[in-house]
């Protein structure tokens, strides 16, 4: 089995994404699990400019408040930090990080899109019963690959980086 990595496109952007992708994957899965996640500053890219420069759809609309208590050996200040609002082109989000004892303890996405309403109970009651339904259960048989929602939002990454920069400032 031969594996090979080929890098094209914006090296700087990909480098940034690669350096924090593992952090994001782990963090995203653990948002609701209250798992402490170490985020040493050496893994934190020094600038967001490679992601945000020229990004016409990224609009910093606010700088939400942050609270700090004390610095730690990791260089991250304790407290809650919210990155600038970023528009991905389809919605606006901001990312809040919580730092405890100099360690990144949680990440949350704040959704800033306008709200609406409109579920149609009548339609659901007609169509849903026509589908097979079953409780979820794990299948451990042979697979060639996995299909899942694995696409990263650059708006998410940009706002996260902004929040981490504030924690490290």
């Amino acid at each position: 089995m031969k594996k090979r990595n080929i890098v094209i496109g914006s090296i700087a952007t990909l480098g940034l994404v690669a350096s924090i992708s593992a952090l994001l994957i782990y963090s995203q899965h653990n948002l609701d699990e209250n798992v402490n996640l170490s985020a040493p500053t050496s893994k934190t890219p020094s600038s967001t400019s490679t992601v945000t420069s020229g990004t016409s759809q990224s609009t910093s609309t606010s700088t939400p408040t942050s609270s700090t208590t004390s610095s730690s050996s990791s260089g991250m200040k304790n407290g809650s930090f919210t990155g600038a609002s970023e528009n991905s082109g389809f919605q606006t989000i901001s990312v809040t990080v919580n730092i405890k004892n100099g360690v990144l303890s949680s990440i949350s996405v704040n959704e800033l899109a306008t709200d609406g309403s409109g579920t149609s109970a009548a339609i659901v009651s007609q169509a849903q019963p026509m589908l097979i339904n079953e409780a979820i259960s794990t299948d451990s048989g042979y697979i060639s690959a996995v299909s899942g929602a694995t696409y990263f939002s650059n708006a998410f990454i940009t706002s996260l980086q902004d929040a981490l920069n504030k924690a490290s400032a």
Partner: protein
Amino acid sequence: MIRKIQTMSMELIIESFPELSESVIDDINNLLTLIDDTFNNYNSNSYISKLNLKKKTIDDSPKVFKYVKELADEYRKKTNGYFEYEFNGFLNFNGIVKAYAISKIKDILLTNNINNFLINFGGDIKTHGIDLKVNNNWVVGIKNPYTKNDILKRIKLYKNYSISTSGSYERGYHILNPILKKSATYFDSVTVVSESIIDSDVFATALYAMEDNAYTYILEKNILALFIKNNKIYFNSNLQKLCNQ
């Protein structure tokens, strides 16, 4: 047999029989560079960035841009506006570009007489032929949206099927219901199986955005879909036939 290419902030994995030659990889890299230069909203030098900043006009658009935009217009119409690429005057084709790339890579492989392959680009998958490791159909697992690594269903992909999943679990609520102008939150994930990778990718996103309207849509359009919501799975009987028992 497995090649990994980092591009467009994602990993492209191609498993093929026979293995990809250097010239095929060059062709794929040239394609990806063209797509990145045209559609990357996060690259200030891309055509779309310049277009959104009014530094370019639609008349300056490269051929690939015109083609993808026409394709996106078709799907916007097909999905009654639930597939959208324009928001607040800005264009963003991320909802279809990945599938377009996979479709073109498939063409490159077939032109080079590579007939058994699986292309996995950020969780969107196109298969062709069979998995020669096991001398059987390609089998793709659908990820459990509630856990890290579990597989909920295995789908046997004959007829060169494609499979795509849209969900909120990897990056928070990220798919907009363009009709209601709010984030779609009804489903935990939506998977679509189709012979066309563009169909499966665009419909997975559009069905997620449709929220509860998606049930009638798949029945009307005969789309093979699997919805996960509140720890339950809903799917058409036609899709059941593809599930490994």
